[in-house]
């Protein structure tokens, strides 16, 4: 740990020196070469993972020192103007990176919507269209059976049984992709059904307690459903939990959904920063929520289970007056 800190501060110190020397070169002589240095420093700061706040404070300190040392060679106002130009130049690579991240977020949200539509379409095709084809096969088989001698009818019966299994399986796939109940009855019944399915499959006791009824806007329902789905997957797959409690309630305008398991737990900060599948899963939940204006708080510790609290402000009857304002 000590070494890691040392390695991290070492280049930062030289960065600071470089920054100070570039800034003073620009303040004294001006020129594009010094601004070119500022741009290169900005790029270097990014690759050294320096935050904007760190950079700003480093700039402030450098400028402060120069102001103290200036002794009339430079007027304060000139120094401040030069400092401003130099900092802007250092920030320009951050501007590029910032625009890149903005584009990426917008693209991800768009992609998510497209995927959700695509999933809906596939789920429908698997359920309804494939289902209709199976009905046609059943009818054709029945026709065939009528013309067959008695001893071969048993054979057809076996095929029909297999077809029934196919149908059941298809319905399950379709349901797992996107339950029709989510669109037809809303996210709470969909979560109940999901809990039932996971409970059977993963041998997990899942309790769903809720006092709320009623629907939310489509994108909100989908996001909440997907988050609870991810949470249950985590509880079953990683947490090795034996029990999960889901509680959904409304506190004034706030919709609160708690998902609590008695599994192995984890160090929330460590998992979120390791960039692996599980950390990404949590970040994914958080991002999904922030896309719809909700928040997620994660409480967990090794050996002490995991508690997720999802909060989302929604309009209810009290809030309508607010909206009308």
């Amino acid at each position, binding site marked *: 740990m000590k070494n890691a800190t040392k390695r991290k501060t070492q280049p930062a110190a030289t960065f600071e020196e470089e920054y100070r020397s570039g800034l003073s070169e620009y303040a004294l002589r001006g020129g*594009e*070469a010094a*601004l*070119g240095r500022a*741009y*290169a420093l900005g*790029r270097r700061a*990014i*690759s*050294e*993972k320096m935050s904007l706040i760190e950079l700003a404070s480093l700039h402030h300190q450098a400028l402060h020192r120069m102001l103290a040392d200036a002794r009339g060679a430079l007027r304060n106002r000139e120094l401040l103007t030069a400092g401003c*130009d130099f900092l*802007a*130049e250092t920030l*320009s*690579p951050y*501007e*590029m*990176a*910032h*625009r*890149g*991240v903005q*584009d*990426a977020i917008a693209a991800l949200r768009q992609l998510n919507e497209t995927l959700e539509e695509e999933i809906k379409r596939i789920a429908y095709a698997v359920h309804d269209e494939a289902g209709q084809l199976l009905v046609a096969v059943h009818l054709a088989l029945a026709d065939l059976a009528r013309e067959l001698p008695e001893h071969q009818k048993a054979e057809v019966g076996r095929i029909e049984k297999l077809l029934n299994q196919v149908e059941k399986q298809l319905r399950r796939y379709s349901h797992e992709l996107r339950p029709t109940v989510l669109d037809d009855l809303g996210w709470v019944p969909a979560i109940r059904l999901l809990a039932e399915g996971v409970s059977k499959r993963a041998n997990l006791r899942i309790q769903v307690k809720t006092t709320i009824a009623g629907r939310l806007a489509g994108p909100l329902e989908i996001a909440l459903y997907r988050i609870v789905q991810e949470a249950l997957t985590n509880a079953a797959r990683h947490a090795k939990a034996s029990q999960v409690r889901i509680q959904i309630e409304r506190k004034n305008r706030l919709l609160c959904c708690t998902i609590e398991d008695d599994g192995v737990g984890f160090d929330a900060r460590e998992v979120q920063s390791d960039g692996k599948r599980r950390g990404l899963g949590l970040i994914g939940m958080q991002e999904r929520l922030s896309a719809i204006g909700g928040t997620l708080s994660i409480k967990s510790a090794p050996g002490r289970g995991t508690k997720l609290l999802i909060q989302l402000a929604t309009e209810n009857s009290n809030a309508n007056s607010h909206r009308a304002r």
Partner: protein
Amino acid sequence: MVINSDQDIVTARQRGRALAIEVGFSTGDATLIATAISELARNIVSYARKGEISLKQVHASSRQGILIVASDDGPGIRDIRQAMRDGFSTSGSLGLGLPGVRRLMDEFEIASEPGRGTTVKVKKWKQ
């Protein structure tokens, strides 16, 4: 102008910034234009060693803008998609390099063939 050294890059930045101000861009936009020039020059120096950057004022109906063309006779980009892909690997951040230039400017065109060099044309219009 020829891009072959750090000094050439400084000259290109300086001319680009001066032209941007002349066209009427704000100092902030001029900074972004200088940054785009640096990124393009950086690309030339690291992949082709030398090349050229030309700068021109452009008009379209009532708009004023700036055109930057960066070209080289280097090995060319074998995989343009790779070059245009946002990555963390070399720069430590998403959004630097050619994708970054695309976002700083309003129009972006790239042509490259293996063995025949690379040409990147970018335009930025005054708002």
